[in-house]
């Protein structure tokens, strides 16, 4: 079985130096973290489910997203899978926000 894109222990692709620069979390990252934990506290999703969702993501996407973007994308997929919300609802809500925020 080939390795999944998440299974990178010991691989050479990422054998370079470790970037130890820390970035200050942005509001949306803190929110992604908190919403995810709140769902966990309510028993709606488990850590292993979220990990499975990340492991099932498109490999290119997995590599290109930032850490909390991966969290968000996998959380969305899990919530859709559990029929708590739909992709269209999220799309509509984003469009609504963009209108309010004055963005295209």
């Amino acid at each position, binding site marked *: 079985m080939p390795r999944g894109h*998440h*299974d*990178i*222990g*010991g*691989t*050479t*692709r*990422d*054998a*370079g*130096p*470790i*970037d*130890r*620069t*820390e*970035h*200050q*979390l*942005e*509001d*949306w*990252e*803190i*929110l*992604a*973290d*908190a*919403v995810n*934990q*709140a*769902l966990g*506290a*309510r028993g*709606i999703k488990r*850590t*292993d489910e979220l*990990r499975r969702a*990340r*492991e099932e993501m498109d490999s290119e996407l997995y590599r290109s997203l*930032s*850490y*909390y*973007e991966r969290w*968000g*994308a996998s*959380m*969305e997929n899990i*919530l859709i899978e559990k029929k*708590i*919300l739909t992709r269209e*609802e*999220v799309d509509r*809500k*984003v469009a609504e*926000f*963009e209108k309010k*925020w004055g*963005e295209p």
Partner: protein
Amino acid sequence: MSVDPSAKQNETTQEHGHPHPKHELSYHAKRIYAIRELLLEKGVVTREDIQAQIDYQEARSPANGARLVARAWVDPKFKARLLADPKAACAEMGIDATSLNEFVVLENSEKVRHMVVCTLCSCYPRPILGRPPDWYKSFNYRARAVNDPRGVMREFGQELGADIEVRVHDSTADIRYLVLPLRPPGTEGMSGEELAKLVTRDSMIGVVDALPALPGSRKNA
């Protein structure tokens, strides 16, 4: 890491039920706000739930872990309890570790150093140390910790003798690890509070030892 306090305010003081981002958000960041809003509308989670999680994470920092380690250094009976039943030992110190499924404390020795990674993602003892640093989540750390732990330590400024064994522990969704670093020499007679200052986050992940005693801080016990 310091958390932007405006995030808290956003949670509590939003007037129109929508966020006011300071600058342009990415596609996925916007979706986070949308998901939050939908979950609130549907009553899946409450604003208070989310705020409670923000507060919880803000209250977690490596200082918690440092208190555990410093106490273990000065109190052998506590150390034994910390190794045998880490969650109970945390509770004794007022640290809530109950959200962890399994929590293991790894004791370093002169001959063995432990190092913690999550090769598959970013599992970390968050109730004890707070959110993981960015480098812990990086592809490079995840890739290298398992087959080049000595090289990783070197990058963090520590050259380990070839006679010292390195054991790397890969975290999972169910098991989290905390390294109990060696007590630095020359720290006899130091108080728990002074000792805790030597216990860095990185020393509890195991990529380096605890800080050496500062010159002049040595006391005659």
